[in-house]
């Protein structure tokens, strides 16, 4: 089954130019999909359309088979959630505990289960000792952990991360990425991650490349990175391993198209150290 199906989707902010222009894609249930594209390419707009935060102009969106319409909106939001880049814009509660509770109350979780759920998800993101702190007193990375806990706690099947780790420090980023991977693996969470982290892209199941409001490329990371010059043309990055391979080729050194840095090091050393 597909977690998300999008068909011929259009959206315009100014009624002059389409920010999302005839976009169609499927996201299989339980997959880890990354969406990449330069700033302004339309990837965040697509994410907001999936949640019904923006109203589509034309086209179809189905979440776990259910048509996204105004009438279905609350049911849709029991299936799919989003974590944004800037955690300051997503706080409601006066303590971390209240903030996580807010979403649960909205989604009608039984009162007697709420405390346990709050504790469980605060622990998952390493924020247990801050449960009674004011969100405004937390650092940026800590706030983002709370925002992620608040959405995860609602036990949705599909989560969209809109550059959710881009404001965290490397340790925080690693922790949150591990957490997302764990939820993806153990609880079959469908992850849709809008990201500039090319290493995350390389490890995902599927990649969707958005450019000028359209889907420019879609496929597995290996398929996508085969188009490295197109990616650079779309102002995107390519993994280090491709860059070093290009530079070596330009100097006449032959290396295979492995994606693994250890193997690349083996090859280079064999080649260079060979008597």
């Amino acid at each position, binding site marked *: 089954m597909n977690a998300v199906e999008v068909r011929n989707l259009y959206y315009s902010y100014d009624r002059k130019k389409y920010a999302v222009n005839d976009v169609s894609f499927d996201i299989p249930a339980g997959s880890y999909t990354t969406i990449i*594209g*330069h*700033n*302004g390419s339309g990837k965040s707009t697509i994410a907001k359309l999936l949640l019904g935060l923006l109203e589509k102009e034309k086209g179809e969106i189905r979440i776990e088979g259910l048509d996204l319409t105004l009438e279905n909106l609350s049911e849709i939001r029991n299936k799919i959630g989003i974590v944004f*880049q*800037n955690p300051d814009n997503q706080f409601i509660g006066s303590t971390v505990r209240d903030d996580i509770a807010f979403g649960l109350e909205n989604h009608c979780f039984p009162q007697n289960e709420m405390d346990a759920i709050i504790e469980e998800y605060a622990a998952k993101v390493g924020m247990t000792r801050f449960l009674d702190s*004011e969100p405004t*007193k937390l*650092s*940026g*990375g*800590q706030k983002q952990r709370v925002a992620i806990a608040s959405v995860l706690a609602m036990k949705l099947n599909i989560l969209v991360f809109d*550059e959710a780790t*881009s*404001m*965290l*420090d*490397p*340790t*925080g*980023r*690693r922790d949150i990425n591990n957490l997302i991977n764990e939820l993806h693996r153990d609880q079959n969470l469908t992850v849709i991650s809008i990201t*500039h982290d*090319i290493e995350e892209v390389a490890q995902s199941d599927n990649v969707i490349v958005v450019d000028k409001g359209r889907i420019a490329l879609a496929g597995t990371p290996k398929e996508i990175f085969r188009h490295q010059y197109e990616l650079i043309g779309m*102002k*995107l*990055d390519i993994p*280090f391993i491709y*860059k*070093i391979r290009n*530079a*070596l080729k*330009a*100097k*006449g*050194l032959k290396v295979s198209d492995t994606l693994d*840095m*250890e193997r*690349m*090091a*083996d090859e*280079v*050393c064999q*080649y*260079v*150290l060979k008597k």
Partner: protein
Amino acid sequence: MSIRFEKVDFEYSPNTPFAHLALKDVDLEIPMGKVTAIIGATGSGKTTLVQHLNALLMPTKGTVEVLDHRIEAGKKYARIKDLRHKVGLVFQFSEYQLFEETVLKDVAFGPKNFGASEEEANEKAKRALTTVGLDEHYYERSPLELSGGQKRRTAIAGILAMGPEILILDEPAAGLDPQGAAQMMSLFRRLNTEKGITVLIVTHNMEHVLEYCDEVVVLDEGQVLMHTDMKTFFENEEYMERANINPPAIVRFKALLRSRGLDVPSDILSIEDLAGFLSRRKKK
């Protein structure tokens, strides 16, 4: 002249249940004329540290010296306006601070506020906009219509228009796409090499530190863990481990080559140089 912290403590909300010591006994000297990266985990005090440099925060204990200014804990400081003229601080997500109707007005606001005439302020604003790569087509546009990267450039132009001697940027590339981020970082590098502006950049991006910075200051729980030049930092695995960073890809790749018996010279820190070295090594 330099930037000096002497035994600086800073405490948020002192004498309340929320009291939090964000800087502890900081001794630090940052040289002028360089690009210095301030790195460290979330909550390590990076933002708190740089906000002392234009007296947005005053030390709870100790002394901060910036240019010819000396800010002492517990003493009233009268020359804030002059200090803020010379030390430009660009906040994280600075694009949220644009407020004027047009880009040109927004950038000219600073110089006007510091006493420049309308004409002078506009002249300075135009020069600053050119520096950040926004031409006259942008002058009359509303800041709200711009893309995220353009908004941030506008905010930076607003600071540059005041002609700062020291430019401080708090995570200036966060949230930009890879090429936007690279353009932003090369702009700061250029401001340093061409105009001699001292630049301090708070960042988490080690690729940027490697490519664009001269010095590295590592903060940890409100204290200076180390201060070294960029090359020494990325040459020492022990330093990187102590700083708890994920080394740039080229440094990781060099470590893999070395562990396989290929001795790569320490000053090779770019892909081009590494490929050149490997091809020369092969020919021998």
